């Protein structure tokens, strides 16, 4: 493993104590924003104020536990990297549904069930990856964003609330959102980094001014002890088989998200990264699942690895796993202070809803970027398009879906569930006819390199390959065919074979004729200009350097050249 130049303290390094502690504080501040999710669920379940404080204290501890489990590098648990986790919008719809139907005990029981699903997936994901191509992972993230935005708006605008929302609430929501947006767009340094937290603070301030924070709210914070062990007054567990699908789908979504985040951790810590380390990913998925089980056991909602935090480790250049211990320590200290939990427990509804809506924008676009990171053909367009719009249909026509038979209704309990189930089903169906190896035969006397490029383009779209890798392969194929036709005296057809899996793209050209010269030293400018021989050697040099690996062999009069590209 080679540390990239932008990383100041790598995963195995020990930064100075002050750097470690300050990083821990920085991350803890960012992670604490996501307490809005367990808070929203607790409100929906009607959990009383004091118990809400205990639930939030446990939630802080759980985020600390999760980042420490991820950082473990020996044994089956943990990806071995600094990979913080937060309460995720993915579990929010199911948790709110459970809260309405059975209170926090049902939320806790079903969350533990979801964690078990994640644990099972951690053992199986290596074999199931083909079922979950990047466009499905991206679609799931987009749907998570939409459901988070929907719930955020519901809280911020008081839709469905027992008390109608008034102008003061809109003022609180507007001030909170404007502050977050302004700091995120125009802020620099710490102001930008903590823009969401500052926006929430602005929301609290506005709420106090317009009377949406009452003296009794303030008193509850003042009266809360500075330090105390949280009690488990809110703990209880129950289970409803009818909600299994509603929680299993977010568990799958969380596993896909964790896979992507852990892969990113691997990439940013190794300049020589070539392909995902599945052992690390399996350990990371197991840690994610164990964390969610712990969330269920301690009465909170599900956790998931946090993409933005992984990005922050790259931006700061500090990826040392010692920071995970610091984050755990800071969050534990915060958990032991009921005052901190009490501040969150009195959060006005608009202040709770606005971050959900705001952060959902980033989640949605992140998913869109994942979907569009790969080439698409009609199959992939239909998988993503139809699944996405069918998922939205649940939100547009809730009465219709509520009237479905119970067994079917379980699969349409929300846009995330229906969209994900449909995407997986459509992908399985449309995979029929897709072959991982495709062939093309060309006549060297009537060579059309554009035809060869189009062949790879079409296959790239069918396979959902990365555009940049297909572009590189297309150049090598076109330049290779050009050079073979002019300099290798091919007799008979040029046989082209392209094969693809998620990690490898191989393009092979086979013909009867002289082998293709592939020098590893660039010919001089004079040699290139002197003759077409020099031009051909330049071509061979470009072909060698442009691929990740090149092999050429000649047997029984037949020559073959293989261009390998890491995907």
């Amino acid at each position, binding site marked *: 493993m080679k540390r990239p130049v932008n990383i100041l303290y790598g995963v195995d390094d020990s930064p100075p104590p002050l750097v470690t502690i300050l990083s821990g504080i920085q991350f803890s501040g960012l992670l604490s924003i996501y307490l809005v999710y367990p808070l929203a669920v607790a409100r929906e379940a009607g959990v009383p104020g004091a118990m809400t404080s205990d639930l939030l204290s446990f939630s802080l501890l759980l985020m600390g536990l999760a980042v420490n489990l991820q950082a473990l590098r020996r044994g089956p648990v943990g990806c071995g990297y600094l990979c913080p986790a937060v309460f995720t919008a993915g579990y929010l719809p199911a948790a709110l549904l459970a809260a309405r139907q059975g209170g926090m005990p049902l939320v806790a029981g079903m969350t533990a069930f979801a964690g078990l699903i994640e644990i099972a997936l951690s053992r199986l994901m290596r074999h199931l990856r083909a079922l979950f191509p990047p466009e499905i992972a991206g679609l799931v993230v987009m749907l998570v964003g939409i459901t988070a935005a929907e719930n955020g708006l519901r809280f911020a605008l008081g839709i469905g609330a027992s008390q109608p929302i008034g102008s003061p609430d809109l003022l609180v929501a507007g001030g909170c959102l404007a502050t977050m947006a302004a700091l995120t767009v125009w802020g620099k340094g710490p102001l930008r980094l903590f823009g969401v937290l500052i926006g929430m603070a602005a929301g609290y301030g506005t709420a106090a001014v317009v009377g949406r924070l009452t003296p009794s709210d303030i008193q509850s914070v003042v009266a809360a002890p500075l330090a105390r062990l949280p009690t488990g007054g809110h703990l209880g567990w129950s289970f409803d088989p009818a909600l299994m699908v509603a929680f299993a789908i977010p568990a799958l979504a969380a596993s896909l998200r964790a896979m992507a985040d852990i892969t990113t951790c691997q990439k940013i810590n190794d300049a020589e990264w070539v392909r995902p380390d599945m052992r690390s990913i399996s350990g990371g998925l197991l840690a994610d699942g164990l964390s969610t089980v712990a969330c269920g056991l301690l009465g909170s909602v599900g956790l998931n690895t946090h993409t933005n935090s992984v990005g922050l480790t790259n931006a700061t250049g500090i990826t040392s796993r010692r920071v995970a211990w610091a984050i755990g320590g800071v969050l534990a200290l915060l958990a032991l202070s009921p005052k901190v939990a009490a501040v969150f427990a009195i959060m006005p509804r608009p202040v709770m809803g606005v971050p959900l809506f705001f952060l959902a924008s980033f989640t949605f676009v992140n998913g869109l970027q994942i979907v569009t990171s790969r080439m698409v053909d009609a199959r992939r367009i239909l998988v993503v398009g139809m699944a996405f719009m069918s998922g939205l249909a649940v939100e547009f026509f809730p009465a219709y879906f509520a009237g479905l038979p119970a067994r079917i209704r379980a699969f349409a309990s929300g846009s995330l569930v229906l969209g994900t189930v449909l995407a997986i089903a459509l992908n399985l169906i449309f995979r029929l006819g897709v072959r991982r190896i495709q062939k093309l035969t060309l006549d060297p006397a009537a060579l059309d390199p554009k035809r060869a490029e189009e062949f790879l383009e079409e296959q790239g779209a069918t396979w959902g390959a990365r555009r940049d890798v297909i572009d590189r392969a297309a150049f090598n194929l076109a330049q290779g065919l050009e050079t073979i036709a*002019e300099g290798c005296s091919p007799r008979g057809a040029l046989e082209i074979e392209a094969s693809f899996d998620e990690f490898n793209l191989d393009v092979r050209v086979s013909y009867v004729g002289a082998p293709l010269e592939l020098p590893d030293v660039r010919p001089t*400018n004079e040699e290139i*200009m002197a003759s077409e021989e020099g*031009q051909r050697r*330049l071509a061979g*040099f470009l072909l060698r*350097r442009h691929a990740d690996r090149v092999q050429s062999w000649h047997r029984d009069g037949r020559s073959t050249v293989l261009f390998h590209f890491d995907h």
Partner: protein
Amino acid sequence: MDLPEERIGDAVVLDARGRIDSTTAKEFGDRMIGLIESGCRHLVVDFKNLVYISSAGFRALLLAARKADETESALVLCGITGKIRQLFEIGGFTDLFRIYPSREDGLSALR
């Protein structure tokens, strides 16, 4: 191959569109050399609309650059981005030519 040209002041801007491969490289090279030999002292070749260049295209550029040196003319390139830029870098051509982001930058440099 589509090679529209535009005269701007005492410079000529040649727009290299499409593909420069073994079938089009001769036309491309002959055009550049023809312009230089006919008195063009400032030649800007714009690659913004180019989708493919092979070793034949690079050879044509080298020959044109040599002709420009012989006649003390200036040959600059512009609009080289993405996968075309990658090929220039792999082939070691980014150090051999004056390359500018846009034709306006190239024309400004020649004034």
